[in-house]
Each structure stands twice: as structure tokens, then as C-alpha cells.
């Protein structure tokens, strides 16, 4: 019954967002310049959110990050990142299967087993040297995109950052499907794990964020375009 309702919702989304897809992608285009811009009807609000997030990242997280990086060396931070990525493997497997990408799902399962056992609960990415065990990640936003759904429109969420209507829905679906949610739904433990995961990732790419912002003529547009290019490429793969 729940599955049936989910399928109806999925189909509705595909139909609703599908119209946008046709406008956003040149058919079978390999040229990234051919992609059109994502609609941004909430631009004033999104720009305000972008500024707020920038203050949170630069002025609030920046000093915390300095201490964090001082305490945990690069290898340890990589280990945390590996652990969280490994933990999310079931969600990637499910999305690969939804997109009928059996080879990716199989690679994810083998990678999960190898990293959980030989990689000590996923802290070490022992499968990295094997190219076929490193497929690009799949999430529910991509599953919707694979089914033909377009972005809908661009959204900047407080703290979570850039997304789109389609990928925002995907974000919620993936969060509900994640093992952390089922293990301890909405408990302080689950929030702590999510917060550390995001903070650890941000600590890894903090310098790149600042450099990209400094190189841009309009940082809001630059990050919006980076988001779109990145997501479109993932859906195309």
C-alpha cells in the first residue's frame, strides 16, 4: 500500500517536473555549454539564503574549522568521510536499482562489504584502487532525473545549501531511507552524526569554497551554475 502510494507520488513528480526537463537539456548533448540555465523564480530569496549560508560557513564555521583541522589531520578527516560514505551505501544501492543500473548496484555492494570488513567499518577506502568499484554515487534526485524529471527550479536552503525542487525532494527521500534515520530517527545521536558528516565534508572543501567565491564576478551565479553542471552530469552518467 505504502509502495503503491510512493509509486503514484513518483509518477506525479515525473509528470510535473518532466516539462521542465525538455527545456533544460539539449537531447544527448555532451557539450556542457549546451545546457540551459535552471529557472530561478525565487532568486531574491535564494540570494538572501546564499548570503546567510556564506556568513554561517565563513564567520561561524571558519574559526571552528581551524581548530577541527588542527586536531584531526587530513588522513583522519578522510577516514571520517569514508565512514559516512560507507554508511550511506544502502541508499546508493537502492537508487542504482531504481535506475536499473545493476552493475553500479553490484559494485556498491562489493565496495560496502570490502570497506566494512577490511576497511574497518568503512574508515579505510580499501576499494579505491579498483576503478570498477568506484562508481559515481546515485541518489533519489538523480533517480527522478533519470526518469525524465527536470530540476523544477533552483532553491538555496538554509545551512543545507543549493538544491532544486527535484533534488530537494530527493534529499528528503534519501534521508528517510538512510540507515541513520532508521537506527535512531530524529534523536540527538542522529543529528550529531549528520552535523559531523556535513561539518567534516565542509572542512575538506572550505578552501575551495573560499577560492571559488573569490574568483567569481557574481558568487551566487557561480555556485548556482556549479551546482547545475554537477547535478546534470551525474544524471547523464
Amino acid at each position, binding site marked *: 500500500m505504502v509502495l503503491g502510494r510512493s509509486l503514484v507520488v513518483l509518477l506525479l513528480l515525473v509528470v510535473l517536473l518532466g516539462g521542465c526537463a525538455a527545456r533544460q537539456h539539449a537531447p544527448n548533448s555532451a557539450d*556542457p*555549454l549546451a545546457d540551459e540555465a535552471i529557472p530561478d523564480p525565487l532568486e531574491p530569496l535564494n540570494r538572501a539564503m546564499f548570503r546567510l549560508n556564506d556568513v554561517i560557513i565563513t564567520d561561524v564555521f571558519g574559526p571552528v574549522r581551524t581548530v577541527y583541522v588542527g586536531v584531526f589531520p587530513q588522513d583522519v578527516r578522510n577516514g571520517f568521510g569514508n565512514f559516512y560514505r560507507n554508511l550511506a551505501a544502502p541508499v546508493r544501492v537502492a537508487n542504482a536499482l531504481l535506475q536499473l543500473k545493476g552493475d553500479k548496484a553490484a559494485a556498491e555492494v562489493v565496495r560496502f562489504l570490502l570497506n566494512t570488513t577490511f576497511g574497518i567499518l568503512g574508515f579505510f577506502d580499501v576499494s*579505491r584502487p579498483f576503478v570498477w568499484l568506484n562508481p559515481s554515487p546515485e541518489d533519489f534526485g538523480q533517480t527522478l532525473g533519470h526518469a525524465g524529471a527536470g530540476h523544477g527550479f533552483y532553491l538555496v536552503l538554509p545551512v543545507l545549501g543549493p538544491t532544486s525542487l527535484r533534488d530537494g525532494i530527493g534529499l528528503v527521500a534519501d534521508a528517510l531511507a538512510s540507515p541513520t534515520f532508521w537506527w535512531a530517527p530524529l534523536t540527538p545521536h542522529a543529528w550529531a552524526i549528520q552535523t559531523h558528516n556535513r561539518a567534516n565534508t565542509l572542512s575538506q572543501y572550505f578552501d575551495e569554497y573560499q577560492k571559488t567565491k573569490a574568483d567569481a*564576478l557574481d558568487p551566487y551565479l*557561480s555556485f548556482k*551554475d556549479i551546482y547545475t*553542471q*554537477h547535478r546534470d*552530469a551525474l544524471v547523464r552518467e
Partner: protein
Amino acid sequence: MKIWGLVLWWLSIASWVCAESSPMGFVQENVNRVVSVLEDPHLQGDRAKTARMEKLAAITDGFFDPTELSRRALGQYWRMLSPEEQQEFSDLFLQLIKQTYLDKFDTYNNQGIRYEQEVFQSPTQATVLLTAATDKGPLHIQVSLIQTQNGWKAFDIAVENISLVRNYRTQFQSILQSNAPRNLIAILKEKVHGSRS
């Protein structure tokens, strides 16, 4: 002995010509030049930073085709610029690109580059795919090149599928929707000279 010397000389010239005549060879040649600057014992540390940056800037100058780079970044707006404005824009945009890349080159500790593939879109346009190993994992890089009178030259670089030219194109087009080309050039000038000081 003389004959062997001649053969050796011919082989070295031939291998240089072959490397230069393919897009992959051109990229490889330039990456090797960057690496040799970064590994030069006379160019290490903060005191040699200016000299190191000058050498890296010279390599970047020869790597890109500034006109093609600018033409693609402006798209339909390119024709709105006068020839003088096009020239000025190309020079400034190349400067901006150099500022974007030189710091990245300078902080790159050569952990190995794998040249994956060379794909021809036409006899005069190609893409070279390479993977650079970094502390945070492999980086997939795509260099787009065209054949010019001076050999192969790059007009775009995409890192993890994010095209540099498209990224700037989005910003340029937004500025040009409400500004004259002269204003865009002024903004670019401010950006280039402002970040230099």
C-alpha cells in the same frame, strides 16, 4: 659515431614533433613543464614565489587560446563587442583565468597524473581526459582544445564535469543583460587589478 649522433638528434626532434602534434601530447607537454617548475630546486619556497609564478604564467599563456576562450565564454554577446573591446576582453579574461589556476598549480603536490583518453569531435577540435591524484581522491579533468595556426590550444577546462567557460559564461551573460560591454570590461578590469593588489 656521427651517424648515431644524427639518428639520436632526428629521433629527439621526431618525438618532440609527434608530442606537439596531438592534443594529448600538447597537454602532456604543458603538464610536464608545470611539474618541472614546481620541482625546480631553485624555485622552491616563498622567496622564489614571484619567479615561480612568472614561469607558471608563461606556461598558461601558451596553453590557452585567449580569443577562443573569450568567444565561447561570451557566446552570442561576443559579436556585440568591437574588435578593440574583444582584444581587451580576451586579455583581461586570460588574466582572470591565470589568477584562478596559478594558485591551484602552486599548491599541487604532484601525486601523479594519468592520461586517460583523447577524443576528437572533429579534425580541429578534441578533448583530453586525465585524472590527477590528490589528497582528497582522484580529480577528473577534461581539457577542450582546438587546432590553431600555432598548434593545439585549450579553450576550456572542466574539473569533475564543471566547465570553467560555462561558469563564467553564466556570469558574463547575466551582467550583459543589464550592462553595456564596456561595463563588463570595467568589472573584469576591477576584478583582475583589484585581486592583484
